[in-house]
Every structure is written in structure tokens, then in C-alpha cells.
């Protein structure tokens, strides 16, 4: 147990440090790039004004509102202290709604959509990959290229094709939104059914894209393991195939978990764009609207929340990995 504790605290400390870097980047990157967001917004506000003094005043007002008149370190301290208060600033487009409020209403949808979709896709993909590697022959010859192709259809492409075929051509599912536009969120049967119907297309489009990539990874891992010495030895011993497959699956699974940690960020990025296609009321659509409306506080709020989410998910995965992989336990005890 002591070994585990050390492993967990190490990992947690590392992720906390990464979080700090991410927060700094989130603060710095938009400010370091040459374009001045405040100038862009202020120029919109002064459009049509002729009085030079008034224009000057508007620019100053905006600069003060975003604290750009202070020095960089001062701005950063302010930013951090606001973060701890849960204050992410005020949205431009939905003035005077707070960014934290806007994100709060969207994040539930994103988590409820992406978490199950990525997990289901990951699981199905691994299963299919392992089966393809084990059966070989014609199944593999067909399955492999198909999955390679599917994994190369970008998430938004898959989303748009599913939307077009099932939402618009066949009209099986509603094509946009998270629930019927005539409903008010409430805990009644009608609303829940509507949510479930709206959930199908975004969910399956993310699952499908995830399956492709995972199946390919798992297939090559399994082929690698199936050729390993321990498998040959087990076969010589006459151990049943069923048992051997279990060994192989477990061993091939471990790198797949690490793979999930490494690719989670990419997957979430793709899934966010898929969300936008269905106008799902999650963070993806929020970002899209914020970009269109040049709503910088909302953009940086969303990016921060997504980073935190991905880091948290990765931390949990690494802790799980530590529990599953016996090598970690031994390494810590030495």
C-alpha cells in the first residue's frame, strides 16, 4: 500500500504542476499574440461614432474592464485570484452573464455525451481489434482496412455524414439541439425521452470514430503479443486457447490504456467539433458561438475547463493503470 501511495502522490503532484503550466499558457497565449482582442471588440462598439473623444473613452473603458492597463504580473495575479473565486470574467456576447455561468450550463451536456461515448468506443474498439488479431484470415483482411478507413474519417466528417443520413434523409432522429426546442428542461418523461432521442446521433458518431483508431492499435498490439514467447510456451504446454487469449488480452490492454492517456486530448478535441455539428448544447457549441462572436472571455474559459477535464481524466486513468499493472507496484516497493 505504501508503494501505491507514493505512486499516486507522485502522479498527482505532476498533474498539478501540468495544470499550473496550462493555466499560465491559458493566460499568456492570447496576450502574447500580436492581435489585440480588446481593440477588435472596441472597434465594433465604436462603429458609427464620429467623436474622437468618445472613441478614445470607449477604448480606455474596455482596456480598464479587462485590466489591460495594468502590468503583466499584476494582471496574472488578478487572473489567478479570480480563478480561485470561480470568476472567469463576463461574456461579451451575453453581457452581463458570467462566463462561469455559461460554462456551467454547458459542461454537463459535454461530460454526459463524451465520457460514455469515448469509453464505449474504446471498449468496443479494443474488443474488435483483439478478435481481428486472433481470428486472422478473411475477417482480419476485411475488418482491418474498414477500420483503418473509419479511423481516418475525421470526427466532424463522421458526424456530418450521420447527421445527413439519419437526421435529414431518413429523419430517424432530430438533427440538432440537446432536447426538443419546444420543451423546458424539467424532470418529466417527455423531456427525458426527447433528450435520449437527441443523444443518439452525437453519441454514435463519437463511438464510431473512436472504435476505428482503437481497433487498429489493439490489433497490432495483440499480434505482437500472440507472437510472444510466453504464448508459444503456453501452446506447447497445451493450455487452452481460451485461457491464452485472456493472457494476451490483458497484456495488450495495458499499452492501450497508456494510449488512451496520450490520445484523450485529441479525441476530446474531435468530439467537441462533432458536438458543434449537431448544435449539441455543450462546450463545443459554446466555443463555436464564442469564436463567431469574438467572445474572448468565453473562449479562454472553455479552453481552461476542457484542459482541467482532460488532465483530471488522465490522472484517474493513470491511477487505475497503477492498480491494474503489477509492475508499478513492484517498482515502487524496490
Amino acid at each position, binding site marked *: 500500500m505504501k508503494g501505491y501511495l507514493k505512486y499516486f502522490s507522485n502522479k498527482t503532484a505532476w498533474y498539478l504542476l*501540468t495544470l499550473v503550466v496550462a493555466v499560465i499558457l491559458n493566460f499568456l497565449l492570447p496576450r502574447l499574440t500580436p492581435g489585440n*482582442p480588446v481593440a477588435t471588440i472596441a472597434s465594433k462598439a465604436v462603429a458609427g461614432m464620429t467623436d474622437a473623444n468618445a472613441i478614445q473613452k470607449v477604448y480606455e473603458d474596455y482596456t480598464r474592464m479587462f485590466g489591460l492597463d495594468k502590468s503583466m504580473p499584476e494582471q496574472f495575479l488578478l487572473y489567478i485570484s479570480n480563478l480561485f473565486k470561480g470568476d472567469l470574467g463576463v461574456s461579451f456576447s451575453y453581457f452581463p452573464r458570467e462566463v462561469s455561468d455559461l460554462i456551467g450550463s454547458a459542461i454537463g451536456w459535454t461530460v454526459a455525451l463524451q465520457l460514455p461515448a469515448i469509453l464505449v468506443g474504446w471498449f468496443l474498439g479494443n474488443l474488435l481489434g483483439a478478435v481481428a488479431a486472433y481470428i486472422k484470415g478473411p475477417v482480419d483482411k476485411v475488418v482491418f482496412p474498414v477500420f483503418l478507413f473509419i479511423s481516418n474519417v475525421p470526427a466532424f466528417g463522421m458526424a456530418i455524414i450521420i447527421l445527413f443520413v439519419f437526421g435529414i434523409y431518413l429523419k430517424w432522429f432530430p438533427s440538432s439541439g440537446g432536447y426538443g426546442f419546444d420543451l423546458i428542461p424539467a424532470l418529466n418523461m417527455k423531456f427525458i425521452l426527447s433528450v435520449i432521442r437527441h443523444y443518439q446521433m452525437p453519441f454514435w458518431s463519437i463511438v464510431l470514430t473512436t472504435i476505428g483508431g482503437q481497433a487498429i492499435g489493439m490489433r497490432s498490439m495483440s499480434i505482437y503479443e500472440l507472437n510472444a514467447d510466453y504464448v508459444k510456451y503456453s501452446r506447447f504446454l497445451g493450455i487452452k486457447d481460451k485461457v491464452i487469449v485472456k493472457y494476451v488480452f490483458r497484456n495488450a490492454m495495458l499499452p492501450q490504456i497508456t494510449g488512451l492517456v496520450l490520445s484523450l486530448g*485529441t479525441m476530446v478535441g474531435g468530439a467537441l467539433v462533432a458536438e458543434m455539428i449537431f448544435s449539441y448544447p455543450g462546450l463545443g457549441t459554446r466555443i463555436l458561438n464564442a469564436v463567431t462572436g469574438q467572445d474572448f472571455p468565453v473562449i479562454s474559459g472553455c479552453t481552461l475547463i476542457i484542459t482541467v477535464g482532460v488532465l483530471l481524466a488522465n490522472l484517474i486513468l493513470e491511477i487505475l493503470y497503477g492498480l491494474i499493472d503489477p509492475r508499478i507496484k513492484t517498482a515502487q516497493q524496490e
Partner: protein
Amino acid sequence: MKYQLQLVFKSQKFVTGFVIFAAVFLLILFYPLLVTKNPLEMTGGLFYKPGTYVSVTDAVDTQSYKINKDVVTGKLTKSVTAEEQQLMRDWLLNYCPEVKPEEVSDAKKAYDIIELWLQYYDKTVEMEGATKAVKNQYVRLYDKVENILESEGYIVSRKNAETGEMEEVAAIETKEFVNVKDIPNRVTFPLGTDNFGRDVLTELVAATRTSLKIGLLAGTVATAIGLTLGLLAGYVGGMIDNVITFITNMFTVIPSFIILILIASGLGQAGRGAMLVAVVIGFTSWPWTCRSVRAQTISLRNRDHVNLSKLSGHSLPRIVLTDILPYVASYVVMAYILQIASGILSEAQLSMIGLGPSTNKVATLGLMMNWAMQFQAPLSGAWWAFIPVVLSIAMISFSLNLMNTGLDQVFNPQLRE
């Protein structure tokens, strides 16, 4: 080198990928030579269907030919809507005393049901329980169909410039045809037009070209950074290794898409040229190349030939370049191929949320998707505005990945079947 190439081209997967990629490449190379018009020229209108468009006035002026073909069937099928066909079916089933239900269910095609209805329809049949409006609806429908059946064609007239009177120019009968080749003014949109009225095929070729350039540049930048840092970290080790590994690990878990959004939104609408976006994508996607190059370099660091070079007093750049790089080269090529694919994908994703290259001089695959989505192409049923784009991205990425898998099997014998 020659032997390796031979080996590589024996791999079925590599060859398939290579052929697809070469086909795309040749298309973007030669298509602009054949079709010289500006890809961004707005010729048509909002989401025109794929096909050839001929000038209507030209068709009147062009020499016509009599062709003995049944033109009524086609016309009827086109002008009697699905709802009207349903009305006919309802009448036959509910009010008609003579028709057998099998006959109605047998009539599958539009023309069959119209014919059946014309055969049995009678104004005088009592329609029980039907309102007057419904009855009149059937009378109107009958007149409409009769009109089409008895149509004699059209008389074309033109306004006389002096007197203002209408003069008959031509009489067009129903069985008159013109040869499409005779018509001087015609436009072909093999894949229809997009929301701006641009020819999708020409635009798509130009966009694929730009996207490939973006992918190449992004991949080059990412591979250059990843390779340099990876070699440095792996070979030099010590403090440098610790720092680089730390940074690399950090950037593999912070989603690169997020960093892209932050930089791209900071750059502002005016600041994002296509090539700048490519460089930014390259700067955010190096970590995994670096990771793997480092791991490979570490395994090479203590090989005998490297140690021998060290003992001979060779300089660090020389050892890295001559004793280590050739051994990781095959891996770097594979990583480069994947980086190109992911660069194209990143651009597309970035453009989808409106942070892609902002320019009205070139189109990229991502921008085409973005325009199609902004103008609600799926809702208008304009599949040609986005499905070819998705397929192009998938095809390029698929071919690159196939090549990568093929290479992997050649250089990584354990994966060979």
C-alpha cells in the same frame, strides 16, 4: 537504400496507400492545367445540383429534331408530387367501387398509379363523408393531369422593340429535342456549386492542394522540432533529457487542440494566413514525435558503434548525424507521414470552429466544410457541398496511414504476417 525501397514496395498496404496518394497528387497537379478557371470564381448560385446546365434561350434558337419517344411519362412523374400520388391512392382505396385493392398495391411506380387513377377516376362517383374541399381537390388534380397529357407544347414569342407587340418566334412541340452539343452556352458542375456559387469540383481540387501544403509544412515543422529535441534528449541525457522529457510529457496531456484555439484566436481574423496556421499547427504537434525519437535514441546510445565513435573523438553533431540518425530514419519517415495527416486534420478542425486560415484568396478543405456548415448545407440536402470534402480528407489521411502501416510492417518484423 535500393534494397529497402524494393522491400517497401513489396508491402501490399504501402503500395495501396501510395497509389491512392499518387492519384490524389496527380489530380491536383494536372486538373488545374485542364481546367484553367479561377477555383473561387462564383459562377452559379446557392447550392446548385450537380449536372450540366444549358441556356434556355439557346435551346429555343438551336436547330431541333423530332424524336419519337414517350415524353408524357417523364413529365407526369416529374410534375405530380408525392402527396398528389398519395391522394390518388387514397381515392382508389376509399371511394372507387370498381378497383381491386391488389391493383393499387401492385402499382409501385409513380406512373403506374397515375395511369390507374386516370383509368378509374370519375367525377360523378359519390364520395361519402368527404368535404367539398376534398372533392374539388380531386377535380383540380384531374384537370392538371389532363393538361399535361394534352399539352401541345409552347409558343415562344418575343416583344418587338419598336411596336411593343408580341411576335411569335417559334412553336415548340412536345416531341422536339435539341442536341446538347449544339448549344453554345452550357456549364457543367460535376459536383454542383457551393454556397457562394463556386464549382465544387474545381474548388475541391484547389482546396486539397492548399490543405496538402498546410499538412506538409505542419508536418515538417513538427518533425524537425520533435526530431531535434528527441535526439538531443535521448543522446545527451542528464539534465537536458529531464527538462525535455518534462516539457514533452506535459504537452502530450495538455490537448494540443486547446493550445491551437488559444493561439489562433489570439492571432485575430486578419493575422491568420494559411501558412502561418500551418506553422502554428506544427508547433503544437511535435511532442509525440519527440517522445518516440527519444526512446529509440536511448536504446541506440550504448551500442558498440556509437561507443567506438565516441572513443575516436568524433564531435557530438557528427555522432548524432552519422551513427544515430540513420537508425531512427525509418521511424522518422513514418512519424512524418502521420504528422502530415494529422496536420491536415488539425487545419480542418480549426477551420470548422471558425479559427482556420482567414483568407478569401484560397480555399482549404476545412474552410469548405466550415462554409457548408454555416450555410446549412445538410439541411438543404446539398450533400455535394460537404461529402466530397469529408471523403477527400479521409482518402488522403487513409492513404498516408496505409503507407505508414506498410512501412511499419517492413521495418518492424514482428508485425509481419
